[in-house]
């Protein structure tokens, strides 16, 4: 059955967005990512204009992350305190990132910076997570080297003022750390036009040293608020949120997020990381191919990246 999308001005087989929502919702519940880096390109492939795809994706992420946050909260896997500080940083970083994009656009090389940032970030994060997780699964870590590195970073983090204990995560950090890291992700997320979950998850794990299952719930909590803000701004300023498409996507994604949360508890942290890294790397390879292979059409709709 086909449904007409009033804002995207296109018709779509309803099974496609529902199925897509289910898959991305599953990833969301499993890894604590919004899935924007995956969903938006797939929607564009289905013929949705890029601006509508990005804006509507934010709307469906609100549903998926609500469903996912709720599921993780019920089992005590959301660190609201950490999520709040990351959110404050993310909000400030988002504003900085939006200004940076304005300057880059005025200079005429925004598209280049966006694409290169995307590929580099996805590639570095994906490769690092993949290698690190595999080696820790095989228990081939050189613990001494890691210990030295950790002690230096830990010493620096502990020297910062405004130290506070995050009970749910069982870690103590300066308030400045999550605010700064949230801000960093916020800048990159604004430049890349994504929620930033795939960047936030590794940062929470490797720098903030949070347990993997708390990371997923906390990341979803942060993504929920980021995407509420983005959905409202996109509706208000660009009129690019397609309500009908969002409903179809969230039909799948809300159920997928619950299923992801269930499966996630049956997998080990290292297994989760390897899976997420593999997906991030696959998206990176797809992006590199898109950038280097000659496209069939040399013209594209304006408005997207």
């Amino acid at each position, binding site marked *: 059955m086909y449904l007409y999308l009033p804002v995207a001005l296109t018709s779509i087989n309803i099974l496609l967005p529902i199925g897509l929502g289910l898959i991305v919702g599953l990833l969301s519940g499993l890894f604590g990512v919004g899935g924007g880096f995956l969903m938006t390109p797939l929607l564009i492939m289905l013929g949705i204009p890029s601006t509508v795809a990005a804006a509507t994706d934010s709307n469906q992420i609100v549903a998926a992350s609500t469903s996912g946050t709720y599921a993780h909260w019920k089992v005590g896997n959301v660190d609201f305190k950490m999520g709040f500080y990351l959110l404050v940083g993310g909000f400030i970083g988002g504003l900085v990132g939006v200004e940076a994009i304005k300057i880059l656009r005025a200079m005429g090389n925004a598209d280049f910076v966006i694409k290169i940032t995307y590929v580099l970030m996805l590639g570095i994060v994906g490769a690092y997570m993949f290698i690190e997780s595999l080696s820790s699964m095989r228990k081939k870590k050189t613990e001494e080297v890691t210990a030295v590195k950790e002690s230096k970073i830990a010493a620096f983090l502990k020297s910062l003022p405004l130290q506070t204990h995050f009970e749910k995560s069982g870690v103590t950090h300066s308030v400045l750390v999550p605010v700064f890291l949230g801000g960093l992700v916020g800048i990159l997320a604004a430049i890349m036009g994504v929620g930033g979950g795939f960047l936030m998850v590794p940062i929470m794990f490797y720098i903030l040293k949070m347990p993997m299952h708390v990371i997923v719930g906390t990341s979803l909590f942060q993504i929920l608020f980021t995407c509420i803000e983005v959905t409202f701004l996109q509706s208000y300023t660009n009129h690019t949120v397609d309500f009908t498409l969002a409903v179809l996507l*969230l039909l799948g994604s809300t159920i997928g997020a619950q299923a992801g949360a269930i499966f996630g508890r049956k997998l080990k942290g290292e297994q989760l990381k390897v899976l997420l890294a593999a997906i991030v790397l696959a998206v990176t390879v797809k992006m590199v191919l*898109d950038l280097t292979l000659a496209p069939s059409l040399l013209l594209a709709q304006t408005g997207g990246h």
Partner: protein
Amino acid sequence: MKNSGLKNRIVIIIMSLSLSLLYLCINNAFAELTVKANHDHIKIDSFYNGSSVGVRGISNPVDADLIIKITSAEGHQSLHEKSKVGSILWMNTGELKIENVPNVYFLHSTRKIENILSREDMDKYVLGYPSLEQHVKMNVTNEEDKTRWFNEFIKFKESSKLFDTSVGEIALKEKDGKQNYYILTQWPYQAPPGNYTVTVYAVKDKKVIETATANILVEQVGMVKSLAEMAKNNGALYGFLSIMLALGSGFGVGLVFRKSGGAH
């Protein structure tokens, strides 16, 4: 002697002109062309997935060729140009701006337009891609670039199903000394709401001898119209409702899973 020669020449010229005018008048007096689109009000509802439009009419003389053009109003279009950066990466590197161009352009003819119509009339009535290329204005510096990017533009529009041409798909049938014609065209869902003009051209001796027009209205109705209007005119409310629905759905599904034991 000189005067009588001049008079003779004037008489010959006048007679030739009169005969030419008479021929044209007779030709046009007998030229008859009607057009009717059988589905001239396309309603876009929630289950819309494109439509079909049948164009039919009568043409006289029976040996005239026919060209059927369906277009939207001309306007401005803007698209990203992709080209290689540093000999490696394909990226959006510029913006192609085109003026005087329709968003939808369908052209059907009984024979190849180049074989039945003079280039002068093709350009006059903007019939065929070469004439459309002449007609539009583009932000390019030379003719070579204009042809290159216009060809890319046609590829882009044809892939979006908004431009299409066909030859020999108009069904013709002679009846009562007149020619009945008919073509059934698929109306793509990609064609946006708006007014479209169907123009039929009767062509003989490489000239357009008669034209007839009909209109097609494509408009959104019901829920589709309400949502599109709210998104455009009341973005704040639309955004608020979208967020509320997403939050409600997320919690709703969460509760269902919790009750069914899924979340434990």
